[in-house]
């Protein structure tokens, strides 16, 4: 498979209260066209920073090193850079500041080519705009449609993400929807401009188990139908393994291991990957109660 994008020696440093906090250290990997790639790791591993870097959404104060090269043949014509969703405020990450060493080609990649789904749909949807308009706006901006065409497209998208009663949902506000429905709307907005790459950053972590499974199935279906490449960011190795073709394991900003899902799960090369697998509490794991030999 050809690479959709090649990340080489990517380093990101956040500046916080005058000190520099490294978030990614010399990460190199290729994202293959059409693959489902999971990036997993614990908090502070740099997985969200990697996603933001790929999308060109890093805060302006971040110091960026290395390159992210998009394979030219894979790219649609570069257009405007409006992000699909509002970047939610992330505590601890510096806001504002001087723009430094931001490679130029980041700016060539815009909302048109990347769809981004965040963890909390409430903070990526505008609370006072009907959801139909929010989706139509994306289609209008990036596909240069009229409002009428864009609204027709929004309705089709709401059907595709299986929102009940798409006609009335077009006029609904985010607060009228459940968490799972809001995430469906955020996904509809993310794919409204027909992106090549969909990035889902902990997109199911705030949802309960049943809704999480529904959203994962939805993402899987949409990615297959549209031939999108998927970067799926998660802390949950079991969830990642169920969805991804390949898994990249990050720890403390470094790429620890990258391989086919089967290899990562059955024959991890790195002790840390093995520890993550062993820490998973599945429905077939030996209960901790037994390990302690104690029972009430």
């Amino acid at each position, binding site marked *: 498979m050809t690479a959709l994008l090649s990340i080489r020696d990517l380093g990101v440093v956040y500046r916080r209260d005058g000190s520099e906090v490294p978030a990614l250290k010399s990460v190199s990997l290729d994202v293959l066209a059409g693959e489902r790639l999971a990036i997993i790791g614990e908090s502070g591993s740099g997985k969200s920073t990697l996603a933001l870097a790929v999308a060109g959404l890093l805060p302006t104060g971040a110091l960026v090193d290395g390159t992210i090269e998009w394979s030219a043949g894979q790219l649609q014509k570069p257009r405007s850079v409006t992000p699909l969703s509002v970047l939610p405020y992330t505590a601890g990450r510096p806001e504002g500041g001087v723009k430094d060493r931001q490679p130029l080609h980041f700016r060539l990649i815009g909302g048109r080519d990347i769809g981004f789904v965040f963890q909390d749909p409430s903070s990526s949807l505008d609370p006072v705009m009907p959801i139909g308009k929010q989706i139509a706006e994306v289609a209008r901006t990036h596909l240069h449609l009229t409002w009428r065409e864009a609204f027709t497209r929004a309705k089709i998208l709401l059907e595709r993400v299986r929102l009940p009663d798409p006609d009335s949902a077009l006029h609904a506000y985010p607060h009228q929807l459940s968490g799972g429905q809001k995430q469906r709307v955020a996904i509809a907005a993310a794919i409204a401009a027909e992106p090549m790459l969909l990035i889902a950053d902990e997109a199911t972590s705030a949802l*309960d188990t049943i809704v999480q499974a529904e959203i994962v199935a939805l993402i899987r279906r949409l990615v297959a139908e549209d031939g999108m490449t998927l970067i799926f960011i998660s802390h949950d190795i079991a969830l990642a393994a169920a969805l991804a073709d390949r898994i990249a394991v990050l720890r403390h900003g470094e790429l620890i291991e990258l391989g086919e899902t089967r290899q990562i799960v059955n024959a991890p090369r790195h002790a840390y990957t093995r520890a993550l697998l062993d820490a998973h*509490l599945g*429905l077939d794991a030996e209960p901790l109660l037994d390990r302690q030999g104690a029972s009430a």
Partner: protein
Amino acid sequence: MSVLAVSSLAKRYHRGGKPFAAVDDVSFDIGPAETLALAGPSGSGKSTIARLVLRLIEPDTGRIDFEGADFLALSCAALRSCRARIQMVFQDPLAAFNPHATVGRVLDDPLRIHNIASRAERPRRIAALLERVGLDAGLAARAIHEISGGQRQRVAIARAIATHPSLIVLDEAVSALDVSVRGQILELLLDLQRQERIAYLFISHDLGVIRAVAHRIVILDSGRIAESGDARAVIANPQSAIGKALVAATPKLIRNRP
């Protein structure tokens, strides 16, 4: 005798002008040193039950007996002293504590409020509590916002056990933790339960976690009990539609161990 016995508990709210039952005819009990898990999807009533049991909200109908006495009949003063025996740990300790307070201050409060230790004795008790939950006693001088999420949840547990409770309500207490830390916190909870015979009302959406630590499970759906029983037996062979859906939706990690 059970530590906590809840019978025919009901709580209704109004949503969009219409009444809806957050908790509807729920009954269960928990014995000493036992862990009862409450599972169910979002909105099934898990957290409302936790708040009812803690008397943070009052039920419309039903009865709660705690350590053999009518918990709902307790007056303010009696309730306050009873609260030492029922403690709680929530998902996000950063939201539960003043982030700028020191760890020592957070642990000093329950010891002072419930007259558990004199002012002179308290620093020693705080150090012992920190060590009991696997933290360095020197952490007492640090601010809550300076320590890691796992350390903070250990502080929340230390605060909960400071008053020698017979019951701790754990509402998604390990849900926000990294998996490596989560295992350690679960081990700590099991160890404390064995040593101090504390009962846990363990609320979680994660059947894997429940199966690892709970003796019995109650599965809720729309405020009602869908099924209940031995945690492992119910998860291995759920009978209710919601129980089956929860098990089916739980991510499975299929490993072929060499």
